[in-house]
């Protein structure tokens, strides 16, 4: 009796790896506002993979501030794929963590950014302060809410969007751009550590006349909190925010998930993936899907980080590192 039970146990143990190999688990480490999007996309990909390969994929999602997530991956969080707010955070994983090759950005179309977004203004209903464009943000008596560019990936896009607008307006005059951004941050009274925190400060605490936000985050705020309270203002010029994705090669190799991780990211570019992104207010890359959702996304003049700032590494170094321009704005005696 006892022996039979033991034998059964041995058999079960022997059989276990066989059926476990069928199931795959993927860990996608992402940033804050993608929660709702990836929940839907993961389900879609799991269906697609099941149909094609008769294999069940389960997903684990991790969300948080983009920089914090990158650090977690460097410090040993075993992500198969990362889908972060900006290319620089993945650059750092490649550089400091040596977990993927430095040319990761060339491995997928469109700089490895399957969907894009931009920076919009969220204002109170009726736009009582008459905010129409970036110039209005530096006016006397306007209170601006944005997260801290030092701690939030989204806020770095905000900052660069303002800088880029000024560069374009004053014909690439760096000194003018710097004065403009300094004046803008002089109107900021609360610098939260993350994008969601700023949204809460603006919507729940009633602080500020205008919130600088991701387009998708602004849409979400209006949808969740009511179009009778807030409205979105699209500036004339803004930045093309390109949230990047990559397979963390070393980890995927170790887990034996390299193929499926690649397929997962490529599926973001498929028609279904692009549709889901558009439904969650990310601007799709596919022209067909973009045309279908055209009325959702207001047209504006968009510039990229590569165009105006020579890429993320450069922008990070000049603007956000210790002693960089953002720190100089907050020197005592600086305007």
């Amino acid at each position, binding site marked *: 009796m006892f022996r039979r039970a033991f034998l059964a146990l041995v058999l079960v143990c022997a059989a276990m790896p066989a059926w476990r190999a069928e199931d795959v688990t993927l860990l996608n480490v992402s940033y804050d506002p993608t929660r709702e999007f990836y929940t839907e996309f993961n389900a879609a990909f799991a269906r697609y993979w099941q149909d094609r390969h008769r294999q069940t994929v389960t997903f684990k999602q991790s969300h948080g501030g983009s920089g914090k997530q990158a*650090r977690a991956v460097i410090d040993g969080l075993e992500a198969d794929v990362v889908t972060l707010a900006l290319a620089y955070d993945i650059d750092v994983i490649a550089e400091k963590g040596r977990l993927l090759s430095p040319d990761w950005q060339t491995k997928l179309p469109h700089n490895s950014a399957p969907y894009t977004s931009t920076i919009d203004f969220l204002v109170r209903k009726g736009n009582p302060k008459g905010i129409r464009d970036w110039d209005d943000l530096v006016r006397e008596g306007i209170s601006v809410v944005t997260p*801290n560019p*030092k*701690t939030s990936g989204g806020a770095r896009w905000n900052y660069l969007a303002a800088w880029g607008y000024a560069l374009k307006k004053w014909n690439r005059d760096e000194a003018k751009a710097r004065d403009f951004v300094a004046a803008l941050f002089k109107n900021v009274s*609360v610098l939260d*550590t993350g994008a969601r925190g700023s949204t809460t400060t603006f919507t729940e*605490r009633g602080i500020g006349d205008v919130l600088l936000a991701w387009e998708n985050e602004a849409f979400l705020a209006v949808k969740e909190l009511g179009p009778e309270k807030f409205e979105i203002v699209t500036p004339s010029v803004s930045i093309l925010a390109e949230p990047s994705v990559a397979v963390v090669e070393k980890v995927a190799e170790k887990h034996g998930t390299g193929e499926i991780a690649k397929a997962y990211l490529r599926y973001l570019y498929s028609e279904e993936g692009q549709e889901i992104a558009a439904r969650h207010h990310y601007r799709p890359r596919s022209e067909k899907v973009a045309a279908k959702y055209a009325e959702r996304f207001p047209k504006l003049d968009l510039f990229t980080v590569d165009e105006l700032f020579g890429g993320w590494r450069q922008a990070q170094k000049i603007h956000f590192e210790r*002693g960089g321009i953002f720190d100089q704005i907050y020197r*005592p005696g600086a305007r």
Partner: protein
Amino acid sequence: MPLLLKRRTVIPGFGLTFGLTMFYLSLVVLIPLSTVFLKTFSSTWPEFCDAAFSPQALAAYKLSLGASTVGALVNAVFGLVVAWVLVRCRFPGASVVDALVDLPFALPTAVAGIALTTIYSKNGWIGSLLSRFGIEAAFTPLGVTIALIFIGIPFVVRTVQPVIQELDREYEDAAASLGASRWQTFAKVILPTLWPALLTGFALAFARALGEYGSVVFISGNIPLKTEIAPLLIMKHLEEYDYEGATAVAVVMLAMSFALLLAINLLQRWSRRWQSP
């Protein structure tokens, strides 16, 4: 040295317990802290100074130290009153109030921070009242202080409470019968007995406040030079992958807290000696 120690103690097992103490302290406290110091050696002296004594860092130390001191002082005064009432006064629901005191210990600091911000912001209960008098609480240094008072209160109450319990009422009666006024009884009889415990409570509340991050980032505006606390500055450096900068600030914070705690310990010892001639 071991011989000397052996002679002085009457309790058996001193070597074993002493060894355990040192091992435990090293594992839990000294080794993690020493890595912080070691990390600073990877940067040069000018680099260290640049990060540790930048205008932003100096402003952050000032705010952190100032708000922590004010918070701990407020707690020392009102914590003493709370402890006194809890021990000496019998009233219905006393045990509930007693349990309430510990809540700031148990509550996740982020929850505390968000709750405080909701109440003290301009459209919150207390914040709207204060704003009528032109006082802004949330997103100012005052807000930081409020958060630090909140998280520090149990430290004072819980250290002072047992000492008040031990306090013999006969001393107060004796003082009164000898013609001391109520104030004299408090200042000359009660306070000296409570002094060491009160100092400990103050030191604990102060030390806790100095390192507090979770609740403060919500209620503070986090504006550099104005409402940025030192722990946030450390987080900012980490976020930039600037580990040297982060440890530089951390080392200064550690040195300051250690100096202050040491000073308070010495003060305590001195006051004890002064009390029992």
